[in-house]
């Protein structure tokens, strides 16, 4: 159980800076997910915490102690890799006990710890098998078992579910969630899958180009994205963006419009706008609804509908050339090619001063 603190963490390979000054605080027992697109530096950041990569600048503290120059094994961490990294020539039991064998722990204690880990992961029946006889999910379970046995202060997961198929991924996701509840240890989890991030995290850290875009509780990030990138990254289907012009500004609102959008007042959330500037309006697909003909806020032509059962996802073409997505009730049947009126609650929309790329 421990806190982790990164202050001004930087990482460069030669002239190329991949982590550009990151500050992150992780509380005791917190489940933190690093999420971001490929190449955003999330895995590098995790490996810096693990000690597999040097920290070029800044400090890493675990439980208030500076860890920058300590060996990985001295940092009180355990890591689970995407490729499992279990030893092919050892049985599951030997794999799980590997750290104990290395550190010459006594037989009795070793057996007890392995048994405990196997019980937690429900893999007692697998202990005498070899990795080649295990499925992907079972292998990852072995890797997690090896981490549990170390009794670490902080668990590190590097995309642990990426090599599993969809169904298994969901099972393992729930198991990791449960493991966190049972052990109560601090965990840092890297993924590019926002569903894993949303479901598992106490706190999500969204990274882009080696910088923290926003950190906070999943629902906070979902409902109050700090910027265009976070707004577009979290949520499925992702948020719709429309290029708009700022017409008027109030205390806590901003009025925007465009050639295809009737004038709406949306919360400004303290962001600075200037009248007449180009801005971006964001509307979650779930909040976009069909409107009464002639009274909608915008007109969109139905291009494609995907009926998923729980909802229907509609692709809309708007006159200014942009595409919108609406996720509407399951029983809606829309005819492709129909021009329709659409509406949304302006209070749930987001205005960003950055122009749309």
């Amino acid at each position, binding site marked *: 159980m421990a806190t982790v603190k990164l202050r001004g963490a930087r990482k460069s390979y030669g002239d190329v800076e991949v982590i550009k000054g990151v500050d992150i605080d992780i509380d005791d027992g917190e489940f933190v997910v690093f999420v971001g697109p490929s190449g955003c530096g999330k895995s590098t950041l995790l490996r810096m915490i693990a000690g*597999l990569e040097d920290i070029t600048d800044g400090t890493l503290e675990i439980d208030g102690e500076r860890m920058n120059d300590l060996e990985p*094994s001295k940092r009180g961490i*355990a890591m689970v890799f995407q*490729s499992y*990294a*279990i030893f092919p*020539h050892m049985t599951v039991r030997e794999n799980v006990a*590997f750290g104990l064998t290395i550190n010459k722990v006594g037989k009795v204690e070793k057996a007890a710890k392995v048994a405990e880990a196997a019980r937690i992961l429900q893999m007692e029946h697998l202990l005498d098998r070899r990795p080649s006889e295990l499925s992907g999910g079972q292998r990852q379970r072995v890797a997690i078992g090896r981490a549990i046995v170390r009794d670490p202060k902080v668990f590190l997961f590097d995309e642990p579910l990426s090599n599993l198929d969809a169904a298994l991924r969901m099972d393992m996701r729930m198991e990791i969630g449960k493991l966190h509840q049972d052990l109560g240890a601090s965990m840092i989890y890297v993924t590019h899958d926002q569903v894993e991030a949303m479901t598992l995290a106490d706190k999500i850290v969204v990274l882009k180009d080696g910088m923290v875009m926003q950190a906070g509780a999943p629902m906070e990030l979902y409902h109050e994205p700090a910027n265009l990138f976070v707004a577009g990254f979290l949520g499925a289907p992702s948020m719709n963006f429309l290029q708009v012009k700022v017409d008027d500004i109030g205390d806590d609102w901003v009025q925007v419009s465009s050639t295809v959008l009737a004038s709406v007042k949306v919360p400004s959330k303290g962001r600075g706008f200037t009248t007449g500037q180009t801005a971006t309006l964001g509307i979650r697909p779930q909040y976009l609804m069909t409107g009464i003909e002639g009274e909608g806020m915008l007109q969109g032509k139905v291009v494609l509908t995907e009926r998923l059962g729980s909802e229907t996802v509609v692709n809309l073409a708007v006159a200014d050339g942009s595409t919108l997505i609406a996720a509407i009730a399951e029983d809606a049947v829309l005819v492709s090619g129909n021009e329709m009126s659409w509406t949304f609650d302006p209070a749930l929309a987001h205005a960003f001063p950055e122009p749309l790329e």
Partner: protein
Amino acid sequence: MASKLTTSNRAGWGFAIPGFGLIMLFIVIPFFFAFYLSLTNQRLISPNPTEFVGLSNYDRLLSISVLTLEPERDDAGAVIREDDGAIAYPRVRTLTRNNPDYPQYQGMREWFRWHWGENAKVVVAKDVVFWKSLRNTLMFVIVVAPVQAGIALGLALLVNQKLRGINVYRAIYFMPVVVSIVVVSLLFRFIYDGNDGLLNNVLSFLTFGLFEGRDWLGDPNTALGSIKAMSIWQGVGFHMVIWLSGLQTISPTLYEASSIEGASKWQTFRYVTWPGLRNTAVLILIVITMQAFALFAQVDIMTRGGPLDSTTTVVFQAIERGYGKQDISGASTISVILFLLVLTISLTQRYLTREK
């Protein structure tokens, strides 16, 4: 099926026959021919017709015995001693030449002897030179296989690091492999030279003149060792490359996992690297063993089996007898024995290193 293969598939056979024929002619037929010739008295050029002689070639090569010599005693029964105090024994040839009491030793000669109390045990063989060649070959294999494999692994571990210019080192270690063994042997003859060889000069320089120099290839005690050292040096780069390819198949995350667990360098090697190299190790061991058994060129060029047969080898004997003495059947017999020996050792190695 037969008709289909022979008639309707003419083009296929047409393409296959050149390769097939060459393999038959130069590999398969000679292989079985060796077995056949070893059972005859075939000579390279001989006016007499070839006769089938059964296993007598094998008998002549492999016959070996131990005989016990009792000390010569005077009339009082006391042991007679030589001038220098050594016990005097009857001469071996009194037993092995036309001695009707010991027909089993007929025609044998002494290989070596040791003392057992007052008695002397003498190992006698019909073909002492062959037994010497067999011993030399085995000694060569026993030393070269593990040492060469071990040094090659050490080099591979060294050049498997991510350092600037590491390819230069890889190339340097590999260079002797590219040079022909004939050229290497000629060069080492100069290096090992007893009068003004490089090795003597270097050793003398390093010991400030204390080392007096020796004729490395002219001394039965050092000749085979010198050939071993040179052979290891020449072949080590090749095996280094094979080890290196094995090392590079080991996933880097396994090393990361073991470093997180706190494994020392030795533990990482013991638990991650070595198990990951198992298949490579089996391959290298078998390849080196087979190469070492085929030792010929170095001996032919550097010592021609001498001095006192101390460097003669099985393959050298086969060629020496087959072409030097025109004794084709004897050479074939040696080849067959070598084949069976190598086969046995390779199968044993495979069995010992099998996947459990």
